[in-house]
């Protein structure tokens, strides 16, 4: 199941990346070659093994439920590209079409 040019365009859209025609072409070839390498594990029967998400056998980790100071609002907002009334400011999210 080789990755197609349409697949690459689709994942680029999901990942919010704009690709030129030339980039689309190049990434399709490169991703196909990387995925072809992964054929070695695709060919294995690993159905008796559990997927491993993490190296540590962790259960939920809780801290004591005690209030403590967080980062200062103005310090955090100072790093934002746009701020209005002590809030992050973004362009229109939902909107009437013009």
């Amino acid at each position, binding site marked *: *199941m080789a*990755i197609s040019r349409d*697949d*690459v365009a*689709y*994942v*680029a859209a*999901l*990942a*919010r*990346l*704009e690709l030129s025609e030339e980039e689309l072409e190049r*990434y399709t070839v*490169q*991703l196909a*070659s*990387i*995925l072809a*390498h*992964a054929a*070695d*594990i*695709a060919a*294995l029967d*690993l159905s008796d*093994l*559990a*997927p*491993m*998400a*993490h*190296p*540590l056998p*962790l259960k939920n*980790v809780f*801290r004591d439920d005690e209030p403590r100071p967080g*980062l*200062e609002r103005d*310090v*955090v907002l*100072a*790093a*934002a*590209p*746009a701020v209005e009334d002590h809030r*992050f400011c*973004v*362009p*229109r*999210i939902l*909107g009437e079409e013009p």
Partner: protein
Amino acid sequence: MLVAGELAGQIRRRERSAREVVTEALDRVAGGDAAIRAFVRVCADAALAEAEALDRRIAAGEDPGPLAGVPVALKDNLCTKGLETTCGSRILEGWRPPYDATVVERLRSAGAITIGKANMDEFAMGSSTENSAAGPTRNPHDLSRVPGGSSGGSAAAVAAGFVPVALGSDTGGSIRQPAALCGVVGVKPTYGLVSRYGLVAFASSLDQIGPLTASVGDAALVLEVIGGHDPADSTSIDAPVPRLSDAVEAGVEGLRVGVCLELIDGVARDVEARVREAAEALSGAGAKVEDVSIPELRYGLSAYYLIAPAEASSNLARYDGVRYGLRVDAPDAAAMNKATRTAGFGAEVKRRIMLGTYALSAGYYDAYYAQAQRARTLVTRAFDRAYAQVDVLLGATSPTTAFPLGAKVDDPLAMYLSDVCTIPSNLAGHPAMSVPFGTGDDGLPVGVQVLAPALGEKELFRVGGVLESLAPPIALPALGALGSVERT
């Protein structure tokens, strides 16, 4: 150059001032880094102010700690409060973190002084430090070669003699491979031994912070300082860090060492020869050495290059032009996200985000991502079987010595193969160390890799200490020497 432990001792005994030591380090950087470009940012004024404050504390009878006055370099994916942190990416240009990473706080509490931020592949994705928005770093041993990556700036800063200690991060070999290519010591600790709080995330189930140093003893000292439980990282192991400095001198008498055939098979002949010589040296020092085969390790590369991009595609979703970093304006939010990410990320980061998105997408999740996670179990169980037989494993760190700049930039898969020997330890969460051991036919440094099971750092440092004491000497990089000539 003096190792960090001795330097700190001299400063604590007031034989030298921290100001003098930090000034010398800054002079070496000013003299030599124009050619190497290990640093993306040097904070001379802050470092000198910290050094003077430290000298005053020592004069007042205080002990500032085991790294008193030691100048350090920090990989630029470690958050430093108020000091620009860019991860080698345009998307974080100008970002000043509102807090320090836990490791940065711990280094400071032990008396270390940060003199600057080290170059890296963008978001730690790469094996040559060529994927940096700041441009490439060069190998101090040969300026036409790469320093390895992604912690190439950290490795080059130590190899050039600018600083005795640097921190890096290792997701698939990003500490050990550049350490090998630059002829320094590099350690990837057990997953969870060092807090990741304040490390900009790449692949969270694989990332670990660790030291790159001029000596094995310094690596032990630094790990004792930065390791240990941190409530701010929920994956941090709640156990004390073992006394590693003692292990460096403990020898390898009776230790069972397995030469892992899969970690020398297919590597360059001169690199394989150095690993075999290292095994003989350990045998001569009293270790029981045997060959071990772990065929499943060969599946590590494929598993890694699905799992790490999958985690990265999720972690890097946060760069959306809203809370920090770059924003490219557009009429609506989705178009703004897209314009920002398209302009802010480099080619390799885009490649990995798309690969990871694909591996996680409906219809391919089981075939790629879940299968890779099962292969991760396969690799980890294979290690477990080997460690029932031996205490540590030995292999190559990198399949070759440092390669020329540009040699692999157009072939992502060839670049990924640089990590083939280092990836298995990340998948299993195990510790591993690269120790310089002689040179290749081209005269460039070779690193031998020592691997141990989870929390096997003590054994790692026992082997590292012996290998260091028996390693053939490596010529100091000409530019490191030039740097020190210029300051006198």
